[in-house]
């Protein structure tokens, strides 16, 4: 269970207006409207029941307990009856409250589930250029924290906010009916409250964001220290790290103290407003009672209602912050849904009898705004040919694979498979023509079989052949459950080399015409490397293969070796031809031979 502490939170842009944002949120809310209405009704039941309980006590007091005019037996019976009503109401409130919580949680979760599905599906549909711009940590934050923020708004705010506003309106109306003048004075307090709440939520939001940023930094620093402990130890950096940590720690504490300060001022301030309101009622209302313009009952009712009025106000500011932060999250989420892939939609061509010829025709390509990696690049690879590409990091080797796979789209020029532009080929079919093996292997938390088939239809005979060709038999022999052994998250741990073999099997299982191999550079010991190389040899036999080689030991048997430098092919030919030529390739090989280089 790994946590990502790269905390990403950007401020709201001015992209979508509030109204449009709500309209889009409502699209997700609409399917759940029945549940939400039920939840609101249930809340009303709870409020009504809890307000009736004190009234019942008064009834009991007035009608039976202190009623000396009737017989004791009647008083006892009446008390019993009211007690029974009390019990029933309390139970109704309990049940309604319970169902309200569960129903609201369920509808909130369903709404978020759908939104999460849409975001995830949309993200997987975006092109690689988008992923280059957005680090994985940020995308995960969208999927987890941003959706969590919105969920909080649904469950803890929407319904209770509705109720609070309803309650406060009803109270204000009641006050006006009872005594318009005193009610107007109370109403004059409202703008003061609004200003206080608005100011409070702005400050609170800012300080909470500061705190989150600080804790993310602090945790990232601890994680770094733990991971790099040996380095810290060797280079005697304990003191320096302690100092840096102490600064971060103190900074985090300071921000928390600031938050406490803000809350310590505003929370009691709202209470103070309520007390001032009470004092005003006593002073002004009392005066009117003295002059006979108001009854004591009205005064008592005013005092009672003003307390009820202020109850939700205290939480209103917190709820306001939650809504603010949820809206910011919503905006970020909808911005993702509005992102269109930078690649033109794929066509639906098929290749009737794919042979596996690949052609780059005058291709110019750059990553984002960077200088072009390839410029006017042309290359023809015959069907069945094995081509190895060598060259320093950044020479454009991997770019070739990226373009054939259509991860990116060239600025100009075309990449063709059997004469058809890759952009015109149906993406499902393209993925079947091509078999890609990447440096980094991703294991699904599933069985070995599922990891090889990836949900594609692979018959048992092919699977058996694939497992054998990929040199997986020795590994499977150590697994009691064979192909049904679970690997990946929570399953059996595989070594880097074993993962590589599995990745080869995975590519083989699609029975592709063209193999694209981005050779691993991870530290695999040579025994495993020999195994992998044999698996590769099996894999690329009678197929077109493009091997991006980081190690030279695998390239010798290629039909053709391309040496790339700064997006250009500077040498091309078989191993023997290039060795005879004595150019860059020959120099690389000479340097790689053990114990030959020392002059």
């Amino acid at each position: 269970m790994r946590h990502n502490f790269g905390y990403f939170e950007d401020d709201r842009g001015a992209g979508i207006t509030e109204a449009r944002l709500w309209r889009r949120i409502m699209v997700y809310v609409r399917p759940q409207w029945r549940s939400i209405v039920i939840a609101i009704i249930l809340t009303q039941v709870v409020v009504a029941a809890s307000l009736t309980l004190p009234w019942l006590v008064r009834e009991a007091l007035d009608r039976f307990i202190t009623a000396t005019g009737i017989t004791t037996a009647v008083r006892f019976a009446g008390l019993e009856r009211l007690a029974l009503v009390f019990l029933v109401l309390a139970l109704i409130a309990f049940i309604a409250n319970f169902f309200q919580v569960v129903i609201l949680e369920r509808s909130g979760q369903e709404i978020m589930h759908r939104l999460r599905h849409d975001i995830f599906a949309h993200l997987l549909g975006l092109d690689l250029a988008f992923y280059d711009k957005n680090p994985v940590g940020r995308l995960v934050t969208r999927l987890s924290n941003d959706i969590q923020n919105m969920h909080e708004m649904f469950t803890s705010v929407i319904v209770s906010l509705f109720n609070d506003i309803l309650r406060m309106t009803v109270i204000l109306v009641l006050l006006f009916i009872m005594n318009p003048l005193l009610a107007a004075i109370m109403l004059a307090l409202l703008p003061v409250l609004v200003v206080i709440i608005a100011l409070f939520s702005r400050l609170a939001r800012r300080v909470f964001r500061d705190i989150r940023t600080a804790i993310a930094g602090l945790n990232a620093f601890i994680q770094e220290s733990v991971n790099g402990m040996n380095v810290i130890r060797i280079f005697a950096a304990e003191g320096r790290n302690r100092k840096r940590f102490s600064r971060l720690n103190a900074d985090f504490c300071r921000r928390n103290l600031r938050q406490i300060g803000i809350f310590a001022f505003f929370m009691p301030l709202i209470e103070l407003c309520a007390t001032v309101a009470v004092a005003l009622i006593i002073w002004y209302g009392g005066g009117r009672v003295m002059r006979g313009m108001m009854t004591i009952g009205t005064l008592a009712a005013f005092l009672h209602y003003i307390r009820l009025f202020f109850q939700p106000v205290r939480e209103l500011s917190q709820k306001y912050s939650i809504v603010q932060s949820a809206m910011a999250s919503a905006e970020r989420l909808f911005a993702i849904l509005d992102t269109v892939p930078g690649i033109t939609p794929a066509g639906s061509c098929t290749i009737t009898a794919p042979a596996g010829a690949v052609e780059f025709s005058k291709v110019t390509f750059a990553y984002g705004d960077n200088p072009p990696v390839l410029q006017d690049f042309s290359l023809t690879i015959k069907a069945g040919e094995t081509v190895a590409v060598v060259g320093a990091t950044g020479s454009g080797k991997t770019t070739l694979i990226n373009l054939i796979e259509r991860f990116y789209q060239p600025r100009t020029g075309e990449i063709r498979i059997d004469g058809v532009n890759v952009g015109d080929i149906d993406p499902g079919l393209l993925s079947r023509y091509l078999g890609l093996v990447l440096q980094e292997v991703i294991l699904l938390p599933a069985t070995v079989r599922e990891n090889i088939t990836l949900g594609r239809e692979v018959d048992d005979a092919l699977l058996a052949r694939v497992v054998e060709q990929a040199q997986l038999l020795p590994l499977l022999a150590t697994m009691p459950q064979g192909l049904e052994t679970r690997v990946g998250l929570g399953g059996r741990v595989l070594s880097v080399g074993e993962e590589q073999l599995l990745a080869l099997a995975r590519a083989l299982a699609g029975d592709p015409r063209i193999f694209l191999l981005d050779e691993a550079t991870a530290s695999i010991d040579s025994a495993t490397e020999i195994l992998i190389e044999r698996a590769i040899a099996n894999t690329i036999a009678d197929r077109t293969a493009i091997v991006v080689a980081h190690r030279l030991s695998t390239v010798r048997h290629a039909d053709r070796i391309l040496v790339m430098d700064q997006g250009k092919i500077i040498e091309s030919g078989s191993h023997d031809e290039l060795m005879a030529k004595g150019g860059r390739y020959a120099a690389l090989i000479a340097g790689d031979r053990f114990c030959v280089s020392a002059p």
Partner: protein
Amino acid sequence: MIPDPLNRQARTVNRRLIQSLFRPYLPTVIAGFIALLGVDGLQLFIPRVIKAAVDDLGHGLAGPASLLHQGAIIAAMGIGVFVCRYGWRRLLLGTSRRIERDIRARLYDAILGLDAPFFHKNSPGEIIALASNDLNAVQMALGMGLVALVDAVVMTLACITFMLAMDPYLTLMAVLPLPFLALATAFLSRRIHYHFNSVQKRFADLSEFGRRSFAAIRLVKATNIAARQVRDFDAVGRGYVDENISLAVVQGLLFPLSVLVAALCLLMVLFFGGRLVISGGISVGSFVAFISYLFMLTWPMMAFGWVVNLFQRGMASLARIMAVIATRPLIVAPAVAVAVVPESEVRIEVRDLRVDAGAGRLLDGVSFTAGRGLLGIVGPTGAGKSVLAAVMARVLPVDDGHYFINDVDVNRLDPGDCRALFALVPQQSLLFADTIHNNIAFARPDAGRDEIEAAAKTAAIHAEIMAMPGGYETIIGERGVSLSGGQKQRLALARALVAGRPVLIIDDGLAAVDTATEQRIVKNLRQTFRSRTCIVISHRLAVLGEADTIIVLEHGRISASGGHEELLAVNSYYARVAAWQNGAEEGRNAP
């Protein structure tokens, strides 16, 4: 090693620790509690002023002056409550944050002092959880938890005392439903804790699933499995939704339940108290007072379950943190350390070294010596090469009599002095989220820019650094530029070189560097290899071209050692690897 249950010993340790943590803030805490009691007192008093004002009005005793006076008193007390509330929030909650800071500092200090075996036993995730989740639980308990506890206890005691003074029998009736609440709360809060943890776990699974899919977006696209990924993601998401609903079911019970029990208490007083009034047992005034006290008790009753839960979690977390703080490092300085004698050459001698570093990583009787020049170590994965490097660099402990530096047993040397002899390029090039300059200068903060650039040039990374937008001031890591594996390794090498230590250990630190660059680096290092004691662990024999001696390590033992030609003749592993890496035909067909 991180204890789970709260045993008595842990509780004693906790109590002592809490005392020592609170001590510096004692006056602040006392002032805070006085403010808290002030709030309680004033709040009990305000209703009496209101009652007096209403009574005066009712009896016709009120006048404009008395009303103004009473209004002013209420407003003044309101301001008093405001000041006291402001006070306790700042003083008490502030102290909890300061104590959190102090504990975190002690935890970090402890972690800095611990050595490799501790980090093998406790994953970074676990340690981070200590510093975040666990510490958070402690802060909650010491802050809001403590406030709520004191407040609830004071209010409950006050109310119950008043009630007992009025009528013991009715008090008994009124509190009869309470034990039921306590039991239900204890049961439900355990369930909540359980469901809460599984919600957290599902949430982590969901994030992890997303992370893996995004990280492997090329695979997802190349194999066209997006639809399947979305389906699987939905399944994980469904599990998360279900777990949340289970949690809501328990949570949906707990809070309404305390409201229900409070209502039941009221019902008891209404029914039994009402009968008492009717039969003349108590006065109407007492009955009304009873009911208002019960209303006051509602909040503490709801709070108790929450507070108890908070405290249990806080104390369990504190015990876990404490266990780490109390852990002692295995490598300790000897009582009387022998000074490391500066010599022009550092000679290393490993004598019959046996190490069991866990997880099958072990050394089983390894002996060799190394002096100025290059010593190469090769061997398959899991042979114990990295363990050997860690022992040599003095980050893994070693028993007496197995490891000598310049003929002195390392256990007689100060570990810090000892480590100062070594520069290490670790297998995983661990860099920090900082500028490139600072990452290289990490080894020696006083290194000048020219020295740093020289090291970067030797590590064949200078040109790439200069091509970055900020040059040496470019920030790397999560928030900055992300580097390739090869770039990270070369930076780690530059860092080790700038340290200028007499011994250089490279633990398979060039594996991700492409062949052409690797060749340049080896050429650049030639001078270094000749002038210092260098130990290079590698799968790639080409890197060891300069080695005076090469050791072949297999299954924790040295299976052969000597020069290249000698090893080709006597060691089958070595011969096989050499043949294969040189691309000879016989290598391809070898098993």
